[in-house]
């Protein structure tokens, strides 16, 4: 167990190193740069821009800049934003809350809805419900999330006026009800794809379990259908779902980015786009690292949880 953990950690570290290296190269080799936003300011000269770039260390050789950034990162210093000089870590933490709120809510919706649909489909495999859900989930997987968001805004905000078209809360109103009011539409839109994915996996997962001996034994022992379902199938088919949750993280994160844009949700996705627009490299790099870290830790945690709750799986 310990050896496995160590080797997984080692692999994760190498992975993060590759991510950081690729990310840094892409950003640094790109034309333009963080100073271009000042190029149109009255009185700005190239001389002045060069001087600022020198002071910010932007003219040093790339490997030097990378090692400098990396060594600071390893000491827990994520650098400061080029835009406002705030520590990158603090900036990310602030936006992380909004993203986690959105992702968490939509994942919760997806798990509940997806599991229900998946199990119902598996139990009556080949029925009308199963077929309908199969087709619907594939269509759901094909809809661009942002477009679905636009349509939702058109219907629920512009036409019906039920829900706000964007933002996380109204100005000067920070009540729970207000948060929920703003949260409901983006969370449901983001959940669409996840419901489809979860229901598909849950269906397969349930089907695998249904045919195993212990279920047949349980049924033979005269347990009701519902009890068998709840106790055995749900418990056993949830295990692979935890792994899936880990693997789904990058997808959900990517989806959150686009959804945040449509609904002007103040999370990491929008921060990423803003920072990209200003070439705020420390923040962009920080976000790339944070999301990679989230993904790595997520899948590691998923594997460990599975190992802990399911003794049949041996880690090696």
């Amino acid at each position, binding site marked *: 167990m310990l050896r496995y953990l160590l080797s997984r950690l080692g692999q994760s570290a190498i992975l993060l190193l590759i991510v950081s290296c690729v990310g840094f190269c892409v950003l640094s080799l790109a034309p333009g740069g963080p100073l271009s936003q000042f*190029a149109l300011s009255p*009185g700005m000269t190239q001389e002045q821009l060069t001087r600022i770039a020198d002071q910010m260390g932007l003219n040093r050789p790339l490997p030097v800049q990378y090692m400098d950034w990396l060594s600071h990162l390893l000491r827990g210093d994520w650098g400061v934003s080029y835009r*406002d000089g705030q520590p990158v870590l603090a900036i990310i933490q602030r936006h992380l809350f909004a993203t986690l709120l959105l992702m968490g809510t939509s994942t919760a919706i997806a798990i509940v809805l997806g599991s229900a649909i998946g199990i119902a489909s598996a139990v009556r495999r080949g029925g009308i419900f199963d077929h309908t859900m199969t087709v619907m989930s594939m269509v759901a997987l094909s809809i661009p999330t942002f477009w679905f968001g636009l349509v939702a805004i058109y219907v629920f905000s512009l036409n019906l006026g039920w829900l706000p078209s964007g*933002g996380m809360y109204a100005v000067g109103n920070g009540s729970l009800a207000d948060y929920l009011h703003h949260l409901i539409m983006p969370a449901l839109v983001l959940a669409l794809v996840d419901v489809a994915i979860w229901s598909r996996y849950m269906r397969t997962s349930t089907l695998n379990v249904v045919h195993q001996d212990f279920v047949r034994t349980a049924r033979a022992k005269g347990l009701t259908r519902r009890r068998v379902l709840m106790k055995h199938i749900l418990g056993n088919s949830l295990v692979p779902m935890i792994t899936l949750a880990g693997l789904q993280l990058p997808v959900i994160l990517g989806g959150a980015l686009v959804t945040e844009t449509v609904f002007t949700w103040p999370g990491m996705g929008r921060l990423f786009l803003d920072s990209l627009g200003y070439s705020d490299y420390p923040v962009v790099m920080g976000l790339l690292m944070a999301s990679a870290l989230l993904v790595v830790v997520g899948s590691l945690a998923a594997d460990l949880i599975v190992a802990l709750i399911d003794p049949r799986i041996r880690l090696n």
Partner: protein
Amino acid sequence: MTEHHDRPLNPARRRTLMLLGAAGGAMMAPSVLGRSAAFAQGAPSGQIILGFSQEPTVFNPLMPHIEVDDGIYYAIFDPLFDFDPDGQLFPILVTEVPTVANGGISEDGLTWRIRLKEGVTWHDGTPFTAADVKFTFELPVNPDFRSFRTTGYALMRDITVVSPTELTWTMTKPFAPLAGVLASTFIVPAHPFEGQDPNAAPFNNAPIGTGPFKWGERMAGDHILLTANANYHGEGPHLERLIIRYIPDLNVMYTQFKAGDIDVIGLQYITPDHLTEAEGLPGVATEVAGTGSFESFALNMQRPQFKDLAVRQALYAALDKTSIIDALYYGVPTPTETYMPQQSAFFNPDLPPHAFSIEKANQLLDDAGWARGAGGIREKDGVRLAFTNSTTAGNHLREQAQQFIQQTFAEIGVEMTISNLPPAVMWGDYWMNSEFDTVVVGMNQLSGADPDTTNYHRSSASPALGGAGQNTLAYQNPRVDELLDAGAASFDPDQRREIYRELQAVIRDDLPFLPMFQYAVVKGWKEEVTGPAPNVNNRIDSWNVRDWRRG
């Protein structure tokens, strides 16, 4: 950089809008006058929420920043003096604006003296003295400081603190635009920087000023809270709190304004398509106000295609400004022939007016010997009349204008290829080192209300020609250089007016850029708020936030 977002509107109604603009201006005049008129100085009360669609992030005014950051500076800090809407300077931290007439500036323009108001204190209680002003002038040229600009400061020598309220310095050459530079120089205190790296001092995230409002708190990505400075040295503030909210989406910002969640809609303002609706909102005042920015179709004068004046004239004739302004921009901006705002005292009203004519454009090109070649594209001496046009990717309205221009240019045998770039790429080396063919760009080339544009039009200011500055069009005209030098050295307002009017005429004839329109924005505030007033000479609305009041 001016990024104007677009919104669609109903049929264009420029005339009406312009009338409204004029009426709005007249309507606002009393509140501007109100500053000098006697207003009883009551205790500050209430709050105003001001919305911006960009986030202020740089709080040290001497560090590189963008337009929206100025919105905070006017509340926290004071300049020595500032421009009023008519382009006249009024004193803030000084007892009198220095001029040659009052002896503040010597006859030769080389020696300056300013006298500061007595009894002014910083927000932390420390007295404000001439030493702070000296520090403010010296920091920008400190080689270790990440400075926004050095224009003007670099010419100052022997800055001497004569007394806590008196400062003198000399200039290495007469430089009239210094007044404009100083009007946008916010004075920062020296004491918070003692023993600090000026680039990383705590001050930079918790500024201390002499201004009407004190730094409260900042929720990054959301809002900045400022509170009244009870000891403000001037009149005001009249508000207990000023909250500046960052709302990154113009639609959402407008919706919140409509819902009454924000009191004043600031930078990027009401999108033109909402103007009609906004005017009908109960309890809301709107106004179309001209800005200091102008939109132009800029040419890279180094390219062989554009060396021929006839080509530039033909392109200008084929530019259907009216359709662009009326249809795409809903008639909000005003057509212009120059870079100078029409509200400026230096504006030249006698420039030859533009007339859209495909026939004339074709005639000009035929006469100059540009004959149609392969694919109907004109060419002459092996040079094809083909070029790329770039702007910031994602600026929808400008992209629409671009595609419209592309179609009209095709009618005169000119092939324009659109090649838009992300902002960080667009305004990097591509722009600064003149790597483009043509660009559609919105710019404010003045520093405050001063008409000096040496940095944009003098041949020595072109990085592509080995100079330093923002003459990225690589425009060269000896007469322009002469006029710019003469204008910068003159302290006589009448003489300067003549010089800058001639300058506009020369540039209009040369057409290094095809002037399109002067930007106007649709401002809005609740009727119960008084104070907001347009000022083409300042970059942002909060220039007079000390006067704002509620009820």
